[in-house]
Structures are given as C-alpha cells and as structure tokens.
C-alpha cells in the first residue's frame, strides 16, 4: 500500500510551481533504495556509492532547507499540498516549522554518517536499501501535515527497522525485533483508531471530511470527553515510541540487539517521532486534553528520568547502559513538553536534536569498541585510555555532552527544559533535576571501568581510532561543541514556532502561560551597569 501511495504522491509533487524540496526529501531516499535494489549483484561497489550519493544529496538538501528557512516565521514553510484520495479528504500535505526543522536536518545528517561510517557484516545491498527506506519514512513522519499520511510514514518506519534489527543484529535479534515491532504496532493501532475518529468527528465542525492537521487543529472543537479519548489514543502510540515509563522495555532490547547503524538511527531520530508526535498531534490537536493529562505525564517523565538513570547505573552491558540513559534523557524531553512554557518547549525540541547527537555518537563509539573487542560487557573492558587515548578523549567529550556539562549541547536543552518547567511544574522539576547527579554517576562509573585502570591482556592491543572513524566522530563533536556554545541560531528558529504553539494552546484551552515577573525587564536594569551603587 505504501509504495502505491508514494507513487501517487510523486505525480502530485511534480506539478508544484517552485521546487518541492520537502517532497524531494521524502522521495529521494526511496529512489535511492530502488536503485540500490536494482543494482546488479555483480557490482557491489556501486551499491554503497549510490546509497552514499543519495543520502549525501538528502543531507545537502536538508542543509539548504535550513539555510533558506525564514527565521522569525513560526508557521509552516515550504508547504506542498496535493489532493490524494479526495473522497476521503486525504492529501499529500507536507510542511516544516521550527519544531520539525532540526529533526529533518538531524535526519539528513545522521543517515550519510551511518552509511559511510559503518559497514554491515553481510548483505550490503539489502542493508542499504532498508536504511534508505527508513530515511524516507522518518522524513515523511516529520514533514507530514496530514494525519493519514503521517500514519503511513509512522508505520513504514517499522518495517525497515524490523528487518535491520532482525537481519543485521546480534544474538537475540529476532526476539528484539519482534518485540520492537509488536510493541510499536500495538501503540499504532490505538493511533489509527484515533486518527480515523478525529477526522470523522471533526467533520461535524469543519463541514467536510479531511485529515489535514492544520485544518482540524484550527477549526474542530471536540467536546471535553471526546478530546480526552482522542488524545489518549494518540498518546499511547507516542508513549510507546518515546518510550515513556513503564512502556520502555522494548527499547533496551532493540537498542542492544540492533546493528550499530540501527542503534544510531533508533536513538537519533526514531524515538523523536514519539516526542515530536506529542507536540504536533497531542498538544496541537487536543490542547485542553493534553493539559488535563499533564500531571500524569509529568510524573511518568520524572519517574523515567530517575528510574532510567538508576537502571542504567546497574547495567552490565555498555550498549544497554546507553539505551537506559535514553529513557532518562527522553524523560527530560517529555517533562519539557508537558510543562508548556516557551523555554521548556524550546528546550525539548533542542534536546531531541542534542540527544540524537550525543547518544548517536555514544552508540557509534560503543559499536567501535565491539568491532575491536567483540564484547560490550563492561567487566571485560579495562584501561582503554592507556592504549587508545584519542578514542578515550572522543568518548569523554561525547559522554560529558550526555552528562549535560555546560559548553556542550546537552546542557542547553536540559537547562532550558528545567528552567522553563520550574515555572509550571515546580516540584516535578526539582526532583527531575536530581537526574543530573545520576547521569554523572552512571556515565562516569562506566567510563572508569572501561577506560581507566591498567589495561589487561585482552585490552592492551585495543586499536586507536582510525581516520574514517575519527572523521565521523569529529562531525558529531563539532556539532556538540558548536551547539553548546552558540545555540542561538537554533533557538531563534525553534522559538517562534513554539510560541505559536503556545498561543494556539492558550486560544483553545483555559491555559495561562507564566508571565515574566512584574517590574523587571528581561535585561538587567541598565542603571546598575554603571552604578554598582
């Protein structure tokens, strides 16, 4: 079904006047995947070349999108809208705003890094084809402004991920892949019902059947109870995807068993489909219902932060430890989303990208350790810093970013989330902030066991980072440092859309966002600059 829909969409996109960059971002990887599949088995060298070219092309376009994005515009840009199944009111409607922009760019950047940086051990052709299909699905999910279209992309993503884990993963890959698939499918089932019901019920207010997100958000007015039911049906799907405690147990298995490339993409962008979903389809479509559910989600997010960190501390497998750290980090993002302030939401969007960078890089590094040592068990690793200082230094920088040390990217998002959430969710925030202590604990302890000490025999020949690995990690580290020191270019693109979303929430609910304390301007009083009294 999905391929048919895409073909139909292609036909529509061609008629667009200006270059339909968003449609191209979605379709280019698909074309790449088809070409990869069509390449003769006798010419394996072309397979990687094609995949690289297409993913780099998509990356280039996503950066071009970033460059031509209008900074202070909070609305949807580069929209392309084409009728698709008009009798059902389904359209190929794509658009990007400050909330999705950086997720698109992150997707665009991560895929070529994964394709260039990590080679699967067998069957390159199918591996790369699935990766490109995955990229298309992720792009589509972040760009869709039609509920039905979104659902299709949201589901498409499962298929390549299932095959990537099942086909190229580790020992318990089939178990992990099935668990991942079933768990997410179950969540999606609720969302499908929610989507159909939303469109059908909204018809009464709008006058015709449509799955268009913007139209429904602006014109539909659900009754309190209906909105709550609808919100819950969406929220279950997103909560599984994020994942929110206690629906998280598919994640450690999927992460640990997935091939390195799969883990990087899974942590980097796939989980963000859940948090992004809460913003775009939870808060935006059902503002008052989302606020009704706020205490539950704040509590689950806070539990996730502490619980994920504690569970991470006790893991014996390094990759599993990083996976549990994701539960904690995503908890911060959910906290920020449901606190609904300008800072907390901007911080959450920021943190979605930051987590993609730092956790993506951590998975990459853990993968490199596995390539060398054929183990991820912390107890079997020791003293690596003594034999591979550059590798250790790279791990250290990425780790400190994950710990949230200021000057690196992780801090910016975490701090904005917390300082914003403090305004509307004070006690949750105070408790959640203790997560910064635990993050230092589990990561530094792991670092000590893996990198410090005198290397034993098995680890004494640990190879130093090679040029290809170093270049890939350098891209991550550059972004980590730049974003940490100068986040303004990101913040000024995210914030207008976030503020617009808050305005929308205020209009469609009885929510009052916190206001700046009276009598004090944002900037410190100028008089004190020279005065000092």
């Amino acid at each position, binding site marked *: 079904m999905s391929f048919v829909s895409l073909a139909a969409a292609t036909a529509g996109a061609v008629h667009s006047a200006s270059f339909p960059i968003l449609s191209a971002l979605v379709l280019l990887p698909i074309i790449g995947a088809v070409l990869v599949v069509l390449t003769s088995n006798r010419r394996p060298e072309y397979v990687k070349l094609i995949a690289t070219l297409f993913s780099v092309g998509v990356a280039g376009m996503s950066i071009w999108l970033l460059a031509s994005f209008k900074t202070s515009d909070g609305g949807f840009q580069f929209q392309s809208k084409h009728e698709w199944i008009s009798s059902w009111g389904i359209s190929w409607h794509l658009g990007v705003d400050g909330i999705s922009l950086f997720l698109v760019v992150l997707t665009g950047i991560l895929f070529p890094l994964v394709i260039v940086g990590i080679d699967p051990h067998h069957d390159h052709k199918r591996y790369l084809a699935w990766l490109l299909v995955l990229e298309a699905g992720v792009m589509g999910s972040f760009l869709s402004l039609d509920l039905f279209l979104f659902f299709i992309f949201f589901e498409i993503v499962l298929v390549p991920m299932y095959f990537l884990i099942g086909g190229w993963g580790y020992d318990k890959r089939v178990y992990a892949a*099935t*668990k991942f*698939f*079933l*768990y997410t499918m*179950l969540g999606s089932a609720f969302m*499908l*019902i929610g989507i*159909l019901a939303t469109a*059908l*019920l909204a018809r009464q207010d709008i006058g015709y059947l449509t799955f268009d997100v913007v139209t429904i958000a602006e014109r539909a007015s659900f009754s309190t109870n209906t909105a709550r039911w609808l919100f819950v049906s969406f929220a279950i799907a997103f909560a599984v995807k994020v994942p929110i405690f206690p629906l*998280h*147990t598919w994640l450690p298995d999927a992460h640990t068993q997935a091939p390195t490339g799969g883990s990087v993409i899974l942590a980097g962008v796939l989980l963000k489909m859940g948090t992004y979903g809460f913003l775009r389809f939870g808060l935006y479509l059902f503002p008052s219902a989302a606020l009704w559910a706020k205490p539950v989600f704040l509590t689950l997010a806070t539990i996730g932060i502490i619980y994920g960190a*504690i*569970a991470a*501390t*006790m893991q014996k497998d390094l990759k599993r430890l990083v996976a549990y750290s994701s539960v904690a980090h995503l908890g911060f993002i959910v906290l920020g989303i449901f606190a609904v302030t*300008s*800072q907390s939401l*901007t911080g959450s969007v920021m943190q979605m990208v930051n987590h993609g960078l730092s956790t993506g890089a951590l998975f990459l590094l853990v993968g490199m350790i596995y390539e060398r040592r054929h183990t991820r068990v912390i107890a079997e690793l020791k*003293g690596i810093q003594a034999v591979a200082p550059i590798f250790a230094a790279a791990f250290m920088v990425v780790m400190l970013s994950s710990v949230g040390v200021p*000057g690196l990217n992780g801090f910016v998002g975490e*701090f*904005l989330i917390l*300082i914003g959430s*403090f305004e509307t969710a004070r006690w949750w*925030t*105070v408790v959640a*902030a203790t997560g*910064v*202590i635990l993050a*230092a*604990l589990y990561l*530094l302890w792991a*670092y*000590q066991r893996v*990198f*410090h*000490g*005198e290397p034993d025999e098995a680890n004494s020949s640990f190879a130093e980072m090679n040029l290809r690995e170093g270049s890939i990690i350098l891209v991550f580290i550059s972004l980590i440092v730049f974003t940490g020191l100068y*986040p*303004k270019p990101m*913040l*000024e693109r995210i*914030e207008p859309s976030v503020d617009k979303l808050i305005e929308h929430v205020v209009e469609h609910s009885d929510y009052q966002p*916190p206001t*700046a*304390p009276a*009598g*004090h301007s*944002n*900037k*410190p*009083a100028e008089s*004190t*600059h*020279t*005065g*000092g*009294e």
Partner: protein
Amino acid sequence: MLDLVWLVPALPLAGFLLIVLFGRKLGEPGAGILATVMTAASFVVVVGIYFDLLSRTAEERHHVVTLFSWLPVGALQVDLALLADPLSITMALFITGIGSMIHLYAIGYMHGDPKFPKFFMYLNLFVFSMLMLVLGENLLVTFLGWEGVGACSYFLISFWHTRDSAATAGKKAFVTNRVGDWGMLVAMFLAFSAVGTLSYAGINHAAETGGIAAVTATGIALMLFVGACGKSAQLPLYLWLPDAMEGPTPVSALIHAATMVTSGVFLLTRMAPVLHASYPWAGDVIATVGALTALFAATIAVAQTDIKKVLAYSTVSQLGFMFLAIGSEAYVAAIFHMVTHAFFKALLFLGSGSVIHGMHHEQDMRRMGALRKVMPITGFTFIIGWLAIAGVPPFAGFWSKDEILLYAFANNRLLWFIGVVSALLTAYYMTRQVIMVFFGQARWNDHAEENGAHGDHSPHESPWTMVTPLVVLAGLSIVGGAMQLPFSKGTKFLEHWLEPVVHHSERNISGTWAYQNKWLLLALAIAIAITGIATSIAVYSKGKFKVIEPAILADAWRYDSAVSSLIGGPGYKSFDAVASFDAVVVDGVVNGAGTEVRRISGVLSKLQTGFIRSYAAIVAFGAIAVLAWFLVRGVL
C-alpha cells in the same frame, strides 16, 4: 583597558587549544612553557584592568562586556557576558597570579611524565574555566565555569588514571560536586522565576530594593549554599576533597587549595544582597555549617600521617572559616581570608610537593624528618607558610583569621568559640607537621630495606622552576595581611576596594562589644596561636606529653567509611533492586502479555502465518471494532 577583559579568559583558552592541536609537537617543556606564558599574560592583562578600575570612582568600578547572546528564549535572555568589578578582578588577580606560579612549578614537578603536554592542556583549561566562573556577569556563565572547573578537577585528579585509587577519586569528586550543582541549578530556577533574569546586577538590584520576598531569597541563598558545600567541600559534602589528593601536587595546590574550592565563597559574596534579603536564620545555617566544618576537619588533621592529607583537611577547615565569615555577613573578611589562604596554602602544598619530589614520591610524614637541612629553601618557605596559617603575627593568615573571628564574636559567641578552638587546633597540627617533616630525626633511611622502590633515599632540593614559586608565595604570605590591617580606616584597603560590591550587605559591627574590645580579641588570638604551637612542640619535639592520635581521628571520624558502606551496601542493593524490578516485573508483564496474546491469536487464526501477521489481524479487527463504537457515539 576594561574592554579587554575578554582577553583574560581567552589567553588560557588559546593555550588549551594550541596544546590540543600541537601538544605532541610542543612536548616537554614546550607545552609547559606555552601554558605558563598564557597564564602569566592573562595575569598582566588583569593587572592592567585592576589599575584601570582603581583609577575610577567607586561608582564606576563596574564594567560589563557582552560577547554574544547565549541562551535567548522568551523572557530568559542570557548573554555570554563578562563583568569586571572589584570582586571579580580580585579573584582573577590571584587566580592568574598564583596560577602562573603553579604552572611554572609544574614544569619542574611533571618533568619526565609521559603525559606532560596533556597535563598543561588540562591546567590551562582549568584556568580558563575558573576565570569564566569569577568573571561571569550572570549565574549561568558562572555555572559554565563552575562545571568546567569540576570537569578539569575530574581530569586532573584521575590524571594518573591507570591507578585505580586516582580514577575512583576523580569520579567521586565529580559526582559529589554534582550534588551541589543540583542546588545551584534550583537556585537559578528560583531566581529566574522570581526576578526574570539570571544576571547578577538584575538579581542583586531586585534583592536590594525588596523585589524578592524573604522566603524566596532564603530559598535561593540556601540552594546556592548547597552548591557551595559541594564545590567548597563543606559538611556533609566535603568527602571528595581529601581523596582529591590523588592528583599531582600542583593540582592540589591550584585547584584544591587556592582557587576552585573557594568558588562557593565567591558565589555567596557575589550574591550577598540575596542572602541579606533572606530570613536571618539562613545566615546562621551557613555560619554554623562553616564553624562545624572548621572544627571537624581540624580534629581530623591532627592525626593524619600523609603530608598532603594534613593539608587537605586543613583546607576544608580553612574554608569552614570562610563560610563562618559569610554566614556572619563578613564578606570582606571572607574574601580577605580567601586571598591570604590562597597564598599560604598554595605555598604549603607546593612545599609538600617539593618534599614529595625530593623524597622520591614518599608521602608518609613518619618517614621524613630533619629535611630542612637537605632542602633548605623548601624548609624555610614551608616554615613561613606554617607561621602564616597558624596565626602568628605579622604573617598574612593572622590578620584575616582574626577579622573573621571578630565578626563571628559579634554575631554569635558560640560559633566564635568553635572558631577559636579550630584555630588552636590549626596551630597545633601545622606545628606537628613542620616538626615531623623538617625537624627531629631523619627517618628516611629507616625503612630503606623494607621499601624497595624507595630504598635509595637521598632527599634533594628541587630545581629552580619549583623553588622560585615557593619564594614568591612565601613573600606574599609574609606581607599579604597588609591589604587589610585593622589599625585605622586608612589601612583597610580591601574593605574600601570591595565596598561597591558588598557595602549593602556587610554587617556593621562598629557598635558592638567585640569591636570596642577588638585589641583584646586580637591578643587572645595571638595567645591561642602560641598555645597551639607550644603544645605541639611539647608533644612532638620535646616529648613532654604522650602523642594522642586516636584512630577515629585518623579515620576521619569514620564518616567517609560510613557513607561508603551506605552507598556500597543499601544504596547499591536498592539500585540493583530497581534494575531487577525492570527486568522481571515491568518487562515480565510485557513478555507475559505477549505470550498470552500469541496463544490466543494461535487459537483464533488456524493459519500459522507468524506472529506479525496474526498480530496485525488482531490490530485491524480491534481498530474496526473501536471505530464502529466511535461512529455510533459520534452519529447518534
């Protein structure tokens, strides 16, 4: 000149980056020289700024340089901005001044270490972070430095990372500090929520004009104090500092004595108006914790045998004095003692490093003795440091400690008494150390046989790179008190200099009994110092009394081991319980449900087409059923 304040942190940052890029090429001593020159150049700029500030009127001694907008989101507008004012420049002066001395010293001390360039890379990064901490115009820039120095401290404590104890100590320092960082984060949230800015000028202005309610101000002040307890090693978070001695000795001198550990004192002084706007008991809490820490650590120092551990506990104790001053709203005294302490404690640490260097990495004082003869300069300068910390006039420590005790007396006599006892103990344990290391019998050959590696002991004086800083710091420890002498208003230079920063919050004690009888208190302080020294000489040199060093004191009141066993025992078990709960219960329910569904789906669909397809069928069936229900509800 003031506009050049950005150069102050930029120079060590440049040093750091250059060593990152060219460290291997620079090698030894190139990297060390580069790092030292960068820090010294930074010092020169600070001196220029100092004279520029001095040439202005008190009202104009406040200059902000905004580099760029760092975190601008809605009402939260945080700039990466630097503030040059008397407080920040005082801090920057001794950070870069003592810092360059310690860099120079480290060139000698780290000689031959295979990671020589890396050491200086971290050292310059530390100086940069420390300068950001003190020069920050708002809480967040300070926090950037605050965490930066924490990270550098971690790198440098575990510098010799193949040694397990060093690796553990580094981690312990970072994690314990993070407990404090949590407090500082919450303080920032409270400040932003109450005032709408993180800028010091904005927050302090609000506090001075009644813009912050007392309850909020108390919350901010106490949360900042939680942060200070972590960074400045106060009870109950001091645990990491004694372990931090695992780091190379220049690190102990620079980070764990002179600069980083005083950050908490600096921060509370910077935010003095907020503490002033708090309930009075907030200050009592701080003063009490400070006094108790001073006493607690001093009792431990009495029984330590490791030359650096004595100094570490002494540092904890002296920091306690500074918080006693802060809590008594004696900010000038706190800064005064911070500066003199930086002089003499850096001197003592570097002296101990020179001893360790000369003794071929022996740190046990029981194997030293009579070293003044073979290490004359080290011995002489160490003795000056000892006189300064013991509170003997006219050395620097006497004046600053006396000023703290004066304010403590005016504030709370019980805390003053605790301070006096701590001062007595300080004189006692420092005399003990000097006797054990530099006087008495030479014991370094006693254990020659049993200790193979240290067998060939012939202690020697250290090279000029190490000795020069000792001499300079000894000079400062002699005359450092001159910046604030209690004789008349004209001799109180520091008080006058810091006035624009603290005048609003500083306690006025001029009418109190303590102030009117300050010469009496001064005389008492001298008597206390002499008593401590004399007792110690009687015990350790003359052998007139039995040595009393209870095991419980040597073991730091067993507090550390109690905390360790709490974390290693119940703490570890409860964490493990959570992890097992996740694996068995949370995941168990999921897998159980999965198995159950699989069984039922097997019954429903006779066609065994794999789980996924049967699952999809169920999903579709369910979707249609619920959709139908929705439709019925929606239509009817």
